[in-house]
């Protein structure tokens, strides 16, 4: 179901992935969650102008701006889990990451530091749209940077401390759970080089 009667002033959560602050480049790469579908899937409905139109989906890509349910923010690890559970449950849809680039100067200076890897910001839709288009169209840092500075768009970019903490805890949880499954489990982990007694698992199934 897609409903086009949503708030146009959506602010999209983006996650700082890598900060470049050199003479050649002063830009930050940020990722965002998308919902994807690459396999044909029946029984979908598009709600447009309060009318439902059934369709057979042959592809989908959309930006995720809020967790499932009524909550607006990803401020707890559980909301990330709910997102993945809700979208990936039936195997047709999945959550993916994509990226945009933003000039470092756009990031708010309230914390008096450059953005750091793992920081979550909320970006206005106009600024996001520009970054999204430029990502593929600009073939040099200079062009990208100039276009950001030339265009008169609302440069809405707000640090989201609660979502930064929520993401940090969620990531820590992933590492901890995965370690428990394999690294710290002698029954399942790959053998150490000094432990040549243990048979290697077959590569192909």
């Amino acid at each position: 179901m897609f409903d086009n009667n949503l708030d146009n002033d959506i602010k999209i959560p983006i996650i700082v992935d890598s900060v470049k602050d050199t003479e050649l480049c002063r830009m930050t790469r940020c990722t965002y969650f998308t919902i994807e579908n690459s396999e044909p899937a029946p029984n979908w409905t598009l709600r447009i102008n309060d009318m439902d139109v059934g369709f057979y989906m042959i592809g989908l890509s959309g930006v995720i701006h809020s967790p499932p349910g009524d909550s607006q923010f990803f401020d707890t690890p559980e909301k990330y889990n709910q997102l993945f559970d809700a979208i990936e449950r039936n195997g047709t849809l999945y959550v993916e990451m994509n990226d945009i680039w933003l000039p470092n100067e756009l990031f708010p200076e309230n914390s008096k530091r450059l953005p750091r890897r793992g920081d979550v910001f909320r970006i206005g839709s106009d600024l996001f749209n520009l970054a999204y288009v430029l990502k593929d169209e600009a073939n040099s840092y200079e062009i990208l940077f100039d276009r950001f500075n030339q265009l008169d768009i609302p440069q809405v970019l707000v640090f989201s401390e609660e979502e930064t903490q929520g993401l940090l805890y969620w990531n820590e949880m992933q590492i901890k759970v995965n370690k428990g499954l394999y690294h710290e489990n002698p029954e399942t982990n790959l053998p150490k080089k000094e432990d040549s007694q243990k048979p290697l698992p077959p590569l192909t199934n």
Partner: protein
Amino acid sequence: MSILRVIMLDVGWGDSILIESEDDQGNYYCAVVDSNDTNRNRFTLNFLKRRLQTFGIDYRNHRHFLDFVMLTHGHADHGQGLKAIMQEFGTSQFWYSKSSNWSSMGNLLSYARRSSKVDHHQAIDDGIQLPDLGEVQIDVLWPIDGNAPESDENNNSIVMTLTLNNVVFLLSGDAEKEVWDHVAPLIPANTLFFKVPHHGSVNGSFDGSNPAWLNNCPGHAELGISCHVGRFGHPDQAVIQLFENSSMSYLRTDHHYHLVYETDGQNIQRFYHH
């Protein structure tokens, strides 16, 4: 005859690398190291689909077709698209680097744990014995067993060798000078292919004003650069000049598109094509 083949795909920027091997019985093995596919350009995924069709291989007959998928480190230009690739092809193994801050890549850890398309997943280091890819031996040179993750994610990159008989191919992720202090002396003398680290950036190839790894790399090795030219001017002209001055043979994805390096365990051939 056994074959090892490394294909560096031109995906515009970032790394997408296919590893193929064939043993002397004709069995085919395939792995993916990093991907920078995006929702608008599933280049690696579609390239592999078409390639397998060309070979007459139906990957859908296998639950876990890929022998392994590797994320060298947790940066988006190396991890984007891996989920879709694992979802499409399935993989026996998903290997990743050690990092204390997975940031946006926690998505992959979560997926690996929950999906039936991934049979086994694990962070790896130089203490882990990895299964062979057909007749190709895989050895991790970095990160070091027991070391805490580096604060610079590039330096969590997995650096590894692929060995078929007498020939070594070396893949380097985005490892920078701090890694090369340890790894450069470990570069095997029979290395015939060396992936230039960090897209040919200064930090990947220089330690101050000195070459970080070049002096330890055999002069006859072929160098491959997966470029990042659209964003930061990678490769850096100083790095290119370093290779020119050393008379090293190099190809770059922004000029030569897909780079193919193939060995029978004795010699190396290189191809590039649009």
